[in-house]
């Protein structure tokens, strides 16, 4: 496929960004690294599979999911144990004089609620921080972007980036050796 450029819209009209398409994951990682080195910050790489090398190339080290999950798990543990204490004292069953707060017997419920709330926090915090659900997004306006979930790799520099300049950024993206560059309508 030759390099193509969709220019049906007049220059000056607002744009979400410029998107380059790549054939291999290696090219995408190299391009992401160079984009970052060139000083761009508002850009994103899109791939049909997780590429751990991109975390390094784009300096992605968001650890908040782990922290939230830890807090969720901790909350679950406290909630589970308290629930057991509450049930046992709200309706006391004296069986052979055994203590009402019998800690070992409370562990299974405490454990299960730790897992339940921790796991739900992991899933929900991941979705929320990713801004999902988000059915509409400008990148979907690029027709070839349908391949981002199949076998192609994309890099999009957003117009919001202070360094973004329609012509200069286009030249920059072309220099990364893409299959093609497209404008992304907002």
């Amino acid at each position, binding site marked *: 496929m030759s390099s193509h450029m969709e220019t049906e819209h007049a220059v000056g009209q607002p744009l979400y960004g410029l998107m380059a398409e790549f054939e291999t994951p*290696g090219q995408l990682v190299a391009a992401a690294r160079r984009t970052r080195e060139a000083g761009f910050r508002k850009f994103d790489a899109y791939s049909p599979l997780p590429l751990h090398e991109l975390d390094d190339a784009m300096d992605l080290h968001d650890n908040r999911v782990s922290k939230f999950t830890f807090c969720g798990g901790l909350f679950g543990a406290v909630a589970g144990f308290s629930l057991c204490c509450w049930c046992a004292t709200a309706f006391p069953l004296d069986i052979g004089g055994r203590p009402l707060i019998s800690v070992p017997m409370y562990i299974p419920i405490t454990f299960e609620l730790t897992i339940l709330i921790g796991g739900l926090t992991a899933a929900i915090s991941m979705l929320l921080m990713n801004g999902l659900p988000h059915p509409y997004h400008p990148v979907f306006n690029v027709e070839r972007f349908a391949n981002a979930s199949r076998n192609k790799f994309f890099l999009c520099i957003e117009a919001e980036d202070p360094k973004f300049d329609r012509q200069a950024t286009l030249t920059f993206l072309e220099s990364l*050796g893409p299959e093609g560059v497209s404008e992304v309508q907002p």
Partner: protein
Amino acid sequence: MQPVELPDKIYVGPVIDEGHSLGSVSDKVGGIVLKRKITLGWTLGLFISFGLLQGLAAGAIWLFVKGIGVWGVNIPDGWGFAIINFVWWIGIGHAGTLISAILLLLNQSWRNAINRFAEAMTLFAVMCAGMFPVLHTGRPWLAYWLFPYPNTMDLWPQVRSPLLWDVFAVSTYFTISAVFWYIGLVPDLATLRDTSKKPWQQKVYGMLAMGWRGSARHWQRYEKASLLLAGLATPLVLSVHTVVSFDFAVSIIPGWHTTIFPPYFVAGAIYSGFAMVLTLMIPVRQFYGLDDIITMRHLNNMAKVALATGMIVFYGYSMEAFFGYFSGDKFERFMMWNRMTGPYAIFYWCLILCNILIPQSLWSKKVRTSPFILWLVSIVINIGMWLERFVIVVTSLHRDFLPSSWGYYAPTFWDWSVFVGTLGLFLTCIFLFVRVLPLITIFELRMLLPGAQVKEVPAHQ
């Protein structure tokens, strides 16, 4: 992932056949859902499964009308089929979580081709399992009494009872399995959304995919959340069958009151689960022509896990018998003797045959790599594991301490009807699943391909 060099006598084939590319795996797996016509075989299979499912409906309705007296349960055998089938189904579910969570943490890349299907199996099996305790309460419309909630009766559940632990363990297990499964589905649903040509499919899969676009920033958090979920699901799956075994072990009934139950139940669960994965996956692989993705390597590995857990189960049986004798307790000794020679002896010896003797054939590489024979062995294991639960539940209960309270348990037509009905429910769900969702995790398959390996090249050349 680098291919590992294995000596010829161990090596049975690659994790994924050569010749696949990022696009071809997407099209192949996605095509089963999007392009494949509805075949006569599938329709017939669904029809039969749905027919069996009516057994559950009829059984449940008759139970509501008459009460649990329609089942074979009695005093002393209060547990019967309800608990046997509950434990059997829950056990089957365990393989799915083992494959999706534990093998992920152990970095076993061969799991990528089978985890989606196995997890779906987990969900459906837990659904079937859940039917039994709820129906066994006799008043299923009051099943919410199992949960602690403030109520006008001022009643609270007994938190020191393993039966309540079970409520928490099983509901957590189902919830976390469903969440893990759905999170795993999201990128694949996006693939279906993007490759589908039909507007309604694009809409449905698009809504389900929540707008996933494969952003690197998303993938980074996604991978983290997946690992965390796997890390949480790993102790969870071990805890679920442990808690199930507590239902037995915390009581003082001879044959149940034993510390070996938790590990032996967990191993048995994984054993039966892998057998069920094989039972379902071998035909699916055949019918959908997936032998280039679910390769001999997968069958071989699953058979090995089944063999290993089967040996642990064998150890469990041996220790049960030994401690029955060694305890010196006459009730324990009698229970063991009664199990081997009493009215249910035939089931015990069938169980030994199905679970211990026949699976020894899995030592042979020839058996492990012949799909049809392996399939037969896996069915034998499924039957064996069901018999195991039957033997544990019934032989301990029917003759306990006082000969004057001894009894005999036999399932009735309605016991069978409900059991066969849950088989129908399970198969119906499986038939629907393979046609509406990608039965293999596509994005994880891509990770196995040489084309997915990052070789950074200077971009401007």
